[in-house]
């Protein structure tokens, strides 16, 4: 710990001082003083040796450095001397800091981190705002409402992209990207990949180079160019094992041969929402070829996200104002394209626009790319951040209490050092160095824990399932800086008060041997408030845990209206492989028959949308009576309904009871009259009078009576367990084949569905060996995935609540144990005077439980205030009030029981005090 030469220099100084004293004594003795007198006088004359040594050392020029080393040396000695104390303090801090580091790494990855591209601060993301009554046709992307209630759309038509690129503006680059669903068939193996179509300048504008091969160029984004694709590093690793020979090879994308020309760098997961990663990137020019009838280009859908890069020194506002005019122009061009396409197909041209309120262009910072899903995670993540922050506070309070207890036992040492001339500032600095040392050690272990916490965090919470599968929270330099800063802040937080208090000793009594009895009351007041705060905070977290656990429990217990057990789900997208019309119908028929033939399969059905998966088709519909009354062209929709296109046996296979009418049959095909089955809430809401069977409705005003209701089903949940069953219409798949380009198969098995996966895969392969299955899971797993956020809250609140409770219990235990040691003498006297063991135990228990009770009362009050004010959080609850008295009482009792155990151990020890030993101890 010392620099070379330091010890020699120190020894020399000591020797110099000693020789000074020797000479002074000798002189005095020679002058006739007795040796004793001489020594005393010489020492008096010399003054404070320690201080002279210290101020002289200061002259060596590196005093602060040497002092720091000395402080560290003292600190290490201090830690070595109390290994138990050190272990508890470091572990406590490591838990608190580790939890914070892990959450921070996720917060950083989801909310804070910039895109890993050149100068992300220059990037601009465009959106359109308003224009609710301005019909733009199809929009493929996200539509949200901003804080002022305006509609914000994420995507633009291709026309806007070309206009923006032509226009001279504050932007040096404009680029576009949109999602595209891809079936990938590579080296004889088929699977579904996430894809994106981008403008040719996408990679150069972002400044993202290829790690192998090359990225795309403008020349590739041209219908005449050979079809090429770039894959992400993730996909390269997971699908092709990182084989560099993949570059230059051909793969089939939706049955079109593409050449892989390059791999984008690791860590770059595109510019779409956080946690998503496009596996394969192709030029926009190939979208219409790959998507065929569903092409957004051909159908004039708004599907492209637009971003740009600002010229140096240019501002967002400039870009926005320079491009607003061209944006309006591009809307008109898009409309003209829609009209001419409609005319070419001989259908009615798009409805008239409301010209008064077209959408406006808005420019946003693009440093994080598309940010919509980030916003969804803001509330839960910051809530968790507060939770782990509270846990760290409790940990700090614990360590502060430990330090106070230690400081009390070091009172003599401190008093001696003060008496020897050490400055109070110097001592505080030394004590703080010790706390910072503890904190640094805690931080180091915390970082290790964080590696492990973080993976656990991702595993328990799966952060929205598939949606966030590409999330990669890393413990990098940023996180390290955060951890170090946090540790030191914690070190100062828990170290300052004890250091301040420890150095405020009254010298005289402390130096006398019996100072022990003067256990200073302000110290214990401080300790007591820390204990109360700890109990209150952990109660708060435990109540949160209780509420979210009940919510999860309630949601899992919800009856969805169908049987979720032994049900295997998987998804296919034959539309991507070019299946449509009769071949598509044949495929589904053959698949169903083959799977039905698999041993152990009880029934097979399929639907356009899976249940309890937050996915649904919502449409307007019309009722004939209202439509007729309104007259041609002015009919208002009767309302919005949820639609699911299903196999004829769907209700039976899913075990949704039919209340009246009939189920679908294979006869309900394209040639037969159109029919539907509705659920109860549809009937109740839209056809309240009498039997709905035989009534009619339609999806077009001109055909408002086109579909006959032939059956009435019991309500079944559709999108999630939380939402009530919406008015729902089931349509027979044979009459709605165009909606079934992709479908989810529901296979009811006998026994564990996962045992049948291989056989089912094989059955599908026998029908089409290139048709990939995706999202294979049980219905129960699917339902749980929908509850990801609830599970996240329940699990993490419980985890951190328990952690907080354990820490608070340890703190309570430590405080009482220390106080029993301090009061041994007093307890001994009490017992000598006739106090029974029971009354001694009661005395100690009372001390601990009074504090706990105070903490519980404060915690309950805090929890009710929070529950009544945190609306956004209480919206996450289900089937339980945020101030649920049962939860409050149960948690409070539970906490009191834990506190009782924590108090009992030191209380029992107090009763073991032997009055004779305690009294002799003085």
């Amino acid at each position, binding site marked *: 710990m010392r620099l070379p030469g330091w010890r020699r220099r120190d020894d*020399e*100084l000591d*020797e*110099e*001082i000693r*020789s*000074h004293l*020797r*000479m*002074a004594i*000798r*002189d005095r003795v020679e002058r006739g003083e007795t040796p004793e007198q001489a020594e005393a006088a010489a020492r008096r004359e*010399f*003054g*404070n040796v320690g*201080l*002279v040594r210290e*101020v*002289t050392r*200061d*002259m*060596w*020029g590196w005093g602060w450095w040497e002092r720091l080393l000395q402080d560290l040396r003292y600190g290490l000695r201090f830690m070595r001397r109390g290994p138990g104390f050190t272990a508890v303090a470091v572990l406590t801090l490591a838990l608190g800091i580790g939890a914070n580091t892990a959450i921070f790494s996720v917060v950083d990855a989801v909310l804070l981190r910039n895109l890993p591209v050149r100068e992300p601060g220059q990037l601009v993301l465009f959106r359109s705002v308003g224009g609710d009554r301005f019909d733009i046709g199809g929009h493929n992307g996200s539509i949200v409402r901003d804080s002022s209630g305006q509609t914000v759309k994420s995507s633009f038509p291709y026309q806007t992209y070309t206009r923006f690129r032509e226009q001279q503006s504050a932007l040096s680059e404009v680029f576009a990207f949109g999602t595209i669903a891809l079936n990938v068939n590579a080296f004889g193996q088929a699977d579904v990949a996430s894809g994106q179509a981008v403008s040719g300048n996408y990679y150069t504008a972002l400044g993202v180079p290829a790690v192998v091969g090359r990225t795309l160029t403008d020349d590739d984004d041209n219908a005449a160019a050979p079809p090429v694709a770039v894959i992400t590093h993730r996909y390269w690793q997971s699908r092709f094992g990182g084989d560099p020979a993949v570059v230059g090879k051909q793969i089939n994308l939706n049955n079109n041969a593409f050449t892989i020309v390059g791999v984008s760098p690791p860590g770059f997961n595109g510019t779409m929402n956080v946690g998503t990663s496009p596996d394969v990137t192709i030029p926009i020019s190939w979208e219409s070829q790959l998507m065929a009838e569903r092409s957004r280009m051909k159908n004039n859908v708004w599907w492209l996200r637009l971003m740009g890069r600002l010229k140096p020194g240019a501002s967002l506002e400039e870009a926005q104002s320079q491009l607003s005019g061209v944006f309006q122009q591009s809307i008109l061009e898009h409309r003209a394209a829609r009209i001419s396409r409609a005319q070419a197909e001989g259908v009615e041209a798009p409805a008239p626009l409301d010209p008064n309120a077209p959408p406006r262009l808005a420019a946003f910072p693009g440093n994080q790319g598309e940010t919509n899903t980030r916003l969804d995670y803001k509330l839960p993540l910051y809530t968790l951040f507060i939770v782990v922050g509270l846990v760290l506070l409790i940990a700090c309070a614990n360590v502060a209490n430990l330090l106070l207890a230690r400081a009390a036992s070091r009172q003599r040492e401190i008093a001696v050092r*003060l008496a020897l*001339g*050490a*400055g*109070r500032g110097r001592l505080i600095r030394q004590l703080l160095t010790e706390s910072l040392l503890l904190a640094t050690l805690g931080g180091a272990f915390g970082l290790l824990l964080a590696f492990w916490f973080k993976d656990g965090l991702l595993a328990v919470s799966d952060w929205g399932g598939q949606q966030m599968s590409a999330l990669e929270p890393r413990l990098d330099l940023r996180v390290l800086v955060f951890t170090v800063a946090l540790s030191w802040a914690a070190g100062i937080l828990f170290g300052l008060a004890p250091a301040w208090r420890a150095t405020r000793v009254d010298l005289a009594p402390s130096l006398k041997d019996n100072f022990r009895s003067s256990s200073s009351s302000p110290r214990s007041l401080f300790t007591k408030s820390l204990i109360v705060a700890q109990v209150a905070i952990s109660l708060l977290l435990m109540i949160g845990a209780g509420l979210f656990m009940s919510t999860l429990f309630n949601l899992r217990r919800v009856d969805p209206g169908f049987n979720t057990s032994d049900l295997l789900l998987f998804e296919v997208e034959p539309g991507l492989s070019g299946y449509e019309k009769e071949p598509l119908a044949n495929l589904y028929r053959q698949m169903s028959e083959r799977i039905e033939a698999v041993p152990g399969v009880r029934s097979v059905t399929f639907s356009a949308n899976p249940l309890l998966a937050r996915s649904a088709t919502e449409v307007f519909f019309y009722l004939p009576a209202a439509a007729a009354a309104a007259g041609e062209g002015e009919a208002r929709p009767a309302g919005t309904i949820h639609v699911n296109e299903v196999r004829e046996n769907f209700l039976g296979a899913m075990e949704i009871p039919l209340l009246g009418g009939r189920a679908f049959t294979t006869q309900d095909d394209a040639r037969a009259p159109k029919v539907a089955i509705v659920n109860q809430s549809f009937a109740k809401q839209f056809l309240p009078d009498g039997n709905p069977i035989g009534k009619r409705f339609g999806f077009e005003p001109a055909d408002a009576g086109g579909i006959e209701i032939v059956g009435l089903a019991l309500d079944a949940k559709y999108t999630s367990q939380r939402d009530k069953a919406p008015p729902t219409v089931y349509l027979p798949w044979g009459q709605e084949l165009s909606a079934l380009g992709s479908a989810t198969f529901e296979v009811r098995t006998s026994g564990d569905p996962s045992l049948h996966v291989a056989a089912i895969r094989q059955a599908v392969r026998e029908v089409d060996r290139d048709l990939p299955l995706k999202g294979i899971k049980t219905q129960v797993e699917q339902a749980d995935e929908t509850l990801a956020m609830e599970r996240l809250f329940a699990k993490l609140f419980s985890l951190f609540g328990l952690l907080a409770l354990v820490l608070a219990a340890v703190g309570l235990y430590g405080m009482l144990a220390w106080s029993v040691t301090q009061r041994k003498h007093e307890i001994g006297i009490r017992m000598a005077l006739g106090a029974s063991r029971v009354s001694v135990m009661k005395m100690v228990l009372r001390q601990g439980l009074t504090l706990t009770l105070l903490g519980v009362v404060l915690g309950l009050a805090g929890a009710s205030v929070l529950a009544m004010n945190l609306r956004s959080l209480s919206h996450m609850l289900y089937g339980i009030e945020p101030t649920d008295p049962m939860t409050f009482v149960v948690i409070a009792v539970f906490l009191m029981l834990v506190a009782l155990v924590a108090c009992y151990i030191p209380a029992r020890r107090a009763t073991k005090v032997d009055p004779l030993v305690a009294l002799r101890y003085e």
Partner: protein
Amino acid sequence: MPKETRYRNRIELLQGTLDLLVLQTLQWGPQHGYGISQAIKTNSGDVLRVDTGSLYPALHRLERQGWVSSDWKVSDNNQSVKVYRLTAEGKKRLASERSRWEQFSEAIARALNPQGQEGEA
């Protein structure tokens, strides 16, 4: 702690003069810390007493500045002592400190005795 600040203040107050006194004492030959303090005390007719809390920091500082050097000698009664001597640099420093002190004390004297100055002129 007030004690420490008291020492520090005195070091600063005395710094210029203490340096001069130390260097001047060493002009007559190498000397140890105790000897220097005794010499200053005796030569000033017991008026100036140098605090060890000022002397040793000053010695160590002068050594760091290169004006004095030190080595360990064995004294008459066979004990090792640290002895300081003036360096060539230190001699120059002493000369300039001296003349600065003389100018200073002259100026103080003149300021305290304005008539005398007029009379001379």
